[in-house]
């Protein structure tokens, strides 16, 4: 035996093909080596390596190796798994603290991940619940900003007539539906749709019938379809509902159908009622410039979206040649329906999926870390079991079974967490998240839980086995040296560094979102939002059919509210800034005629009662506001324009006394009497839009749906009930809705950002706690192992400060490494948050600094306890150990 086989190869064999099961294989390899080495030692070594690699690749994953080679061969694998699980349950029941911490940590992360997945799934991950959803598209006209969200009826009917790529097309408009009963009136969101709308989507009412062509006649009033929810709630699931006459907005409508419970309108998720559009070419609202309709279509089978896009663009260009004054930016676009409806919510949902993924990784890292620490302490147990004949495979199976039991418990608990958290999250979600009603813990969510459980079980089972293997390997390589601590330490430190990095990533995200929201709230809305009560009122029905009766009602309401104690100013407007409304008109100046009237700037219309700008504290920069007397004049119309609109129409000129015309050449002229400050209408994060103000008495129809705004002294919520009562006192049947404060209206307009921020902060805090626990665990373990060393140092005269520094340095290295990696990752990944940021760069140094400072401070705190313990080591006790 002058030659010995390569030791590293032998160690590898021992590590991956343990002696207990593979003695004969390794023996064969060694014998082959000896035989060859007699003639050529060099060839024998090479051959041994080749044989080793072949044996490892051929045999390591052999499923039969357990049954074929171990003393357990008579036991079926199922039986052995069951006995492993029984043993695991006993072991885990004994280690209560460990089990509870692991299950709790994992349950929170699994619950969060499942809840976020369930929210994102219907909106962006799974297909829309319609037949052949990939054929559903939306059609848009081009506009200055890209695409115009709404289209005029004439354009839709022209494209429908000429296009060859669509099997169905339909138009849809918003509809405010107030159901008037004998004792009450309730206001719902509804839609006016082409009769083909539901056929296009491929859904049918569960009760009654859908719309047919005969329903959709010009100025149609009659038939109406209602949602399942409305049928249950307002009509008590009455089975004879079909044919029932209902008073809606003062018009008798006949219910012809009830939609299925699962139906949620993709264009208007809150819609509860549908009536036919009833437009024809002669309808007032069917002009090309009346851009208030959504245009939805279904592609013919085999037609791609790109094909449709090309054709529609061609048709739109053709239309703009035929009607040169109607289209400002020629061209058309076809977008997938799902892409379009999810476009707003997608960035925040993707960011949240990423964040919750990071949280899940941290949780898994943490329990793995605990499991590793525990495995070290269980060395003796394993040694005894090995001595009693348990093979390496058997021990690995045992660890896997323990992981499986833990992960399954956590999976069940996590599902409960998700079930509790999901309704809560859904109530916080902004309406912009599509398909809210489809959010539930379904089979796909449970599948996600199962997948996570399996991964956790594998990681928890494999990590200790891997660690144990490394230890033996190292032992074999440098026999005699004690390397246990080092190896175990390295693995656990790596995990802790990863945790710190992920926590840094989440905190940096949270800081970026927080800074964005702060910037947003600092944004000047153009009015004073504090101390404002708002409520929607509606004057509708037969009592308000007389001309002037709506205005008279408004006057009485204003008078009643003005008398409420604490009310300083009160006014009404037909749309509220930041309220999510969209009512814009092209504004033309009399002294600046345009060749193409479509190029006139679009401005938000505010049709108001005279005191509106005062109640809102919108500043008047030039001129004055309306006087009560001049708004009663129905001939000489007066208006105020916003500063931006004045500068756009008359740069460098005095706008006072100039005339404007809105909504087309047939309309009257308005004299400008004042210039107001700009107001953010579409969103605090949106660009400044143009506005013009008209008195409601001078607008050419009576606005029966108005929002009342009351500026009050003190807390708005305290005065709101009294205002409500005052309105009720004028007309008890008058529907009222959305009694709220302007601050809440603004909060709602930023709901998506707030939700993103809240979740990022929550995930960040949990991640931070877990990472801190990780640092603490590693340091505490290390202090334990080094008790002797600290004893020696103290005995040799090291001060407690020097000892504490030793420990702190170890912790600082871990934290700094994690911070550096996390910061790098944050700088790279934060650009995926860009669409959620406002006024802050993705690499904002302050946000990064905030994240890093929090991590550093908390990490330091985590180091303090182990450091203190190290300084308290009694040298005598340490030696006696």
């Amino acid at each position, binding site marked *: 035996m002058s030659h010995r086989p390569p030791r590293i190869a032998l160690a590898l064999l021992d590590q991956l093909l343990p002696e207990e099961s593979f003695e004969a294989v*390794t023996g064969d390899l*060694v014998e082959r080596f000896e035989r060859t080495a007699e003639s050529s030692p060099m060839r024998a070594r090479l051959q041994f390596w080749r*044989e080793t690699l072949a044996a490892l690749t*051929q045999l390591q994953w*052999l499923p039969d190796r357990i049954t074929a080679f171990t003393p357990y061969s008579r036991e079926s694998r199922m039986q052995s798994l069951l006995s492993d699980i029984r043993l695991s349950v006993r072991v885990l029941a004994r280690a209560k603290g460990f089990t509870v911490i692991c299950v709790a940590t994992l349950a929170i992360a699994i619950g969060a991940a499942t809840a976020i997945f369930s929210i994102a799934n219907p909106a962006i991950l799974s297909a829309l619940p319609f037949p052949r959803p990939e054929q559903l598209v939306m059609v848009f006209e081009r506009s200055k900003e890209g695409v115009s969200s709404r289209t005029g009826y004439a354009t839709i009917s022209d494209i429908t007539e000429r296009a060859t790529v669509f099997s169905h097309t339909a138009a849809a408009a918003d509809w405010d539906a107030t159901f008037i009963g004998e004792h009450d009136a309730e206001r719902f969101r509804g839609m006016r749709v082409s009769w083909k709308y539901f056929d296009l989507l491929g859904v049918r009412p569960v009760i009654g019938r859908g719309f047919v062509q005969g329903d959709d006649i010009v100025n149609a009033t009659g038939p109406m379809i209602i949602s399942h929810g409305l049928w249950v709630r307002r009509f008590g699931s009455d089975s004879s509902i079909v044919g029932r006459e209902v008073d809606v907005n003062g018009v008798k409508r006949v219910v012809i159908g009830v939609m299925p419970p699962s139906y949620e309108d993709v264009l208007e998720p809150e819609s509860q009622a549908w009536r036919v559009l009833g437009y024809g070419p002669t309808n007032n609202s069917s002009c090309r410039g009346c851009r208030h309709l959504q245009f939805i279509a279904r592609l013919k089978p085999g037609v791609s979206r790109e094909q449709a896009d090309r054709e529609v663009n061609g048709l739109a260009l053709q239309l703009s040649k035929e009607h040169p004054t109607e289209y400002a930016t020629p061209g058309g676009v076809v977008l997938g329906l799902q892409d379009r409806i999810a476009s707003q919510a997608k960035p925040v949902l993707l960011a949240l999926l990423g964040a919750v993924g990071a949280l899940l990784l941290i949780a898994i890292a943490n329990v793995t870390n605990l499991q590793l620490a525990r495995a070290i302490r269980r060395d003796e147990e394993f040694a005894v079991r090995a001595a009693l004949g348990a093979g390496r495979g058997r021990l690995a199976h045992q660890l896997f079974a323990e992981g499986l039991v833990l992960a399954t418990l956590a999976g069940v608990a996590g599902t409960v967490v998700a079930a509790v958290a999901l309704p809560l999250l859904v109530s916080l979600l902004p309406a912009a998240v599509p398909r809210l009603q489809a959010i539930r813990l379904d089979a796909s969510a449970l599948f996600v839980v199962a997948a996570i459980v399996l991964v956790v079980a594998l990681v928890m089972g494999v990590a200790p086995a891997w660690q144990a293997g490394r230890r033996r390997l190292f032992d074999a390589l440098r026999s005699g040296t004690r390397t246990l601590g080092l190896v175990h330490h390295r693995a656990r430190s790596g995990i802790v560094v990863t945790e710190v990095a992920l926590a840094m990533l989440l905190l940096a995200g949270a800081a970026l979102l927080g800074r964005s929201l702060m910037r947003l709230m600092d944004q000047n809305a153009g009015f004073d939002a504090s101390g404002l009560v708002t409520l929607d009122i509606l004057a509708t029905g037969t009592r308000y059919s007389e001309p002037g009766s709506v205005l008279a009602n408004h006057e009485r309401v204003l008078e009643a509210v003005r008398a409420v104690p604490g009310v300083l100013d009160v006014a009404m407007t037909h749309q509220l800034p930041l309220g999510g409304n969209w009512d814009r008109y092209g504004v033309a100046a009399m002294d600046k005629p345009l060749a193409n009237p479509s190029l006139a700037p679009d401005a938000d219309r505010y049709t108001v009662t005279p005191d509106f700008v005062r109640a809102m504290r919108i500043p008047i920069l030039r001129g004055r506001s309306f006087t009560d007397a001049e708004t009663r004049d129905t001939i000489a119309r007066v208006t105020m324009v916003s500063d931006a609109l004045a500068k756009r129409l008359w740069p460098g000129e005095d706008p006072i006394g100039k005339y404007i015309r809105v909504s087309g050449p047939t309309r009257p002229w308005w004299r400008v009497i004042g210039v107001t400050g700009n107001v953010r209408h579409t969103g605090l994060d949106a660009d400044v839009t143009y506005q013009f103000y008209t008195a409601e008495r001078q607008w050419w129809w009576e606005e029966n749906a108005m929002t009342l705004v009351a500026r009050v002294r003190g807390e708005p919520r305290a005065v709101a009930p009294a205002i409500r009562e005052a309105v009720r006192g004028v007309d008890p049947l008058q529907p009222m809705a959305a009694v709220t404060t302007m601050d809440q209206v603004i909060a709602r307009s930023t709901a998506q950002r707030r939700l993103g921020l809240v979740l990022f902060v929550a995930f960040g805090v949990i991640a931070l706690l877990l990472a801190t626990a990780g640092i603490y665990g590693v340091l505490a373990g290390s202090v334990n192992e080094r008790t002797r060393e600290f004893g020696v140092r103290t005995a040799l005269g090291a001060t407690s400060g020097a000892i504490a520094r030793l420990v702190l340095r170890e912790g600082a290295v871990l934290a700094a490494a994690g911070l550096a990696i996390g910061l790098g990752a944050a700088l790279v990944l934060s650009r995926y948050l860009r669409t959620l940021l406002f006024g802050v760069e993705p690499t904002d140094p302050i946000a990064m600094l905030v994240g890093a400072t929090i991590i550093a401070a908390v990490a330091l705190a985590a180091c303090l306890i182990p450091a203190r313990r190290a300084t308290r080591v009694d040298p005598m006790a340490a030696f006696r150990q």
Partner: protein
Amino acid sequence: MLGELEQIVMLATLRLGGDGYGVTIQDAIRRATGRDLTLGTIHKTLVRLEAKGLIASRMGEAEARRGGRRKRHYDVTPAGVKLLKASISALRRMAAGLALGLETR
């Protein structure tokens, strides 16, 4: 029908008359076919055959030149012999009359 590798390993085991083990089976195959199968491949095939009940194994004595490790000896079971016969006669029938010069006796 047995796989080619399985046939070769079983035939080599039969030749060694119940005393064969990894190294000698490897040598027997190399001598008869010139193919240099790795011990890993041979053991994998043996494990598979044993799981199917076509061969049986017993542990032998430890030897110094094996680093103190025991041998595992293999023998073909009656079921294995039966299947081997069926497999080879199937090959024969497939080759019959093809003038490949296979009909030596």
